[in-house]
């Protein structure tokens, strides 16, 4: 743990604001969602990508229609493997 490691954190969406005021407005709009947010400086937020739909819904309710680029990340291999394994587990039971 003491070693300096490069941490690659997938499954996150980056919300990049034009300025700090937009970021504050954005935070206010999505506050009711009680999200897991990591704030980076005064322009950027990292949020779990699977919450983007509810974020957009809240923002649109406030009249903000952000630009969305990129595609939703595919489920991780582990999840896919779990999904594949599920029926086998049921059979075993």
């Amino acid at each position: 743990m003491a070693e300096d490691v490069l941490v690659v954190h997938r499954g996150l969406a980056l919300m990049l604001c034009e300025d700090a005021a937009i970021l504050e407005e954005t935070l206010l709009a999505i506050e009711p969602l009680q999200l897991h947010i990591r704030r980076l400086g005064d322009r950027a937020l990292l949020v779990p990508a699977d919450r983007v739909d509810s974020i957009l819904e809240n923002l649109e309710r406030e009249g903000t229609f952000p630009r969305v680029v990129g595609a939703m990340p595919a489920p991780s291999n582990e999840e896919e493997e779990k999904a594949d394994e599920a029926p086998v587990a049921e059979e075993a039971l």
Partner: protein
Amino acid sequence: MSDQRSRVSKGPLDEAELAAYLERGYADASRRFFARAWDVADDPEAVAQVAGQGFDDDIDLEDADPTVRALLGLVAERGGRVRGENLRRDLLLRGFGESRSTIEELLTRGWLVALPNPGEHDCNLNSVFEQKTFLQRELAVLEASFEHLEAMSQQQALSAPAWESATADDNPATVADLELNLLHLCALIRRDPLKLNKDGTPNRRSLARVARGVSMPGSHGEIAGDLDLHNAEQLDYLAFLVSLSRELGLLATQDSTCRTDDDALGRFFRSDDAERDRRLLDAVQRLRFWNEIDSLHLSRSPSHGVDDEHFSQSESTGQPLIGARGFIISVLRRARFSDWVARDALAQLCTQLDRQYLNRTLSQLPRSPDPDEFIHAVLERTLVWAGILQTGAAGDGQALIRLSPRGARAMGLDHEIAEHGDDGCLIVQPNFEVMVFLDNAPASVLHALYRVGLRRKLSDRVATFQLVAESVQRGYALGADAESLIALLNERGHTPVPDSVAFELRDWERAHRRLTIHLGGASLRHPDPERFDLICGQLEHDLRDSNEQLIRLGARDAFVTDADHPAIRRAAESQPSLQLDALGDPARSFYFVDPLVLMVDPYECDVITRVELDRVGDLLEDESSERNLFYELDPDKIAKRFPDDPLGGICDFLAPRCEGGLPAAQSIRLQAELDEAPRFHLESEVTVITFEEIDTAERFRQLGEASDLIARRLGPTTYAVVTDQVPLLEELVDELHMDQSSTPFEQDH
């Protein structure tokens, strides 16, 4: 050669072709049949000559009934040769009913000739009549008879009525109208998702918000103020639209809500017209959540009504009818009619072709609908509402049906539809209104306008859209951009886009871009800024030729817009790294150092974990450093964070984040803090008896004295003995000759 040439002939049967058939094609019995019918010598040459010269008892229409006149008129219209099935079908569609016996009579007279099938060498016409297979053959008139028919046709002695006096119903429903309704419905549901009740029926208030702009089939202009969702026919049509949208993939239901799938909507309306027609017909056939039988009942007696399940988007009342609908559509394809046909005749054709199939399919359904009723429901309701068929009336009032041009195209039949030109179809006004002339507007233009505008009005063939900041920015969020939009409006506009409108469209885009959300990327962190700078530099270099980018977010943080880019993998492999996934299992980053106190490395901590830690504990700032954060779990915060089940909630949060799961000591302490403290009783000087065998232990339990002896069973072979009863126990084991072991048994069986 002459034989081969004759097999691909068209038109009436001439002498050479008949001679070739007599030589190789017809059996001798057929030649004798012709000689007898035409009253000539039974000689191949003499028989063949009849084709060119005619015969004494040739076609005479003086006493002929209308069916014979129509039949011969159709043969003349088709150039003297027609397939038997098609002749029968066309007569049926033109209202002459079943004509099999008339055809057989003309064949017997020799007015018509049933030809050998390609490759057939011994066609025996007697067998053909016996087996009634003449409809599966080409039927031709003789060349001499054909000239006679043509002369009669010019004198109007023949009649093959084609409903020339037919008139179409006013304002027939068209595919274009249906598409406009689908676009409108999906555009409004995009803004305000359609709520469904528990039984799957659309919530009426929610439906009312999206339904006002829909136009009913056969009426121009929107329902608007006439919307009445207690009107069964309006509700029925809206259920049809919602169901059709779902089959096309334009709407999707989730959690009792219908939402617009914008990608699917864009793909559908940007595809070419023929492809859309094909998909539309396919979706109409596959309708699962609406059925035409109940729908027709509603229109005939709205006061009686039908069950609510007809309107339900969760009851697949239409699904059992998919096969039967497909059958009727295939009949329409095979009928290949290009003009008006009698509605009842068309329905009759559907039953005549394969009645057994419909009877069998429909009889298996819960309510066993009547086949005739079902056919009429598909023809008059489903396909008319879809704009595939159009209804009309003959001069004598007989109900007629024809394929609409786009209906014919959807069926893959010949059609006369001109391609949309690039002519103007809209006017952008300085007040941000866009007037669209629907007759010239391609669906892709309408889709683009629905994406960025609000449709305010729909009058006769003109729709008016309003561009406002919110609607345009919503459109930009869905993929539109200012330059493309302005280019489209200029290209399709009768006048250039006013400067003020173009300025605002660009300004709204600037506002829209003030917040950008990048999906599918990866966040990068490294505690050493200098090292991280080098890593980022290498990544920027690796990404320079792709569309992806690295966004620096401070000295220790960056974001790469594609999480799966090979450059990230290379960076992670070239040095010590840790992979986290916010959508996968959390990293094991918690280390308990004291009761309810844990240590975590902030750099190895995923976002969810970090945020949750603040919600369930307090940071011990004095003990913490940049690389090692110490948190003390706070029972009050935990109770607030997981109000329903504090102990379960916190254990579920901690367990996957600790190597080897949540330590038992921590979970007992948490139980003590969050639930009742675990209670225990300490007892000393206890007598315990252990047996070597389970069977013996069981027998011991069944002794009559057992209830007095046993205080508690401690395991399969072990019992705690009531202290006061030890003398009784000793007496008992002695009496039973049991052997006491001086050492404990190795294991409890």
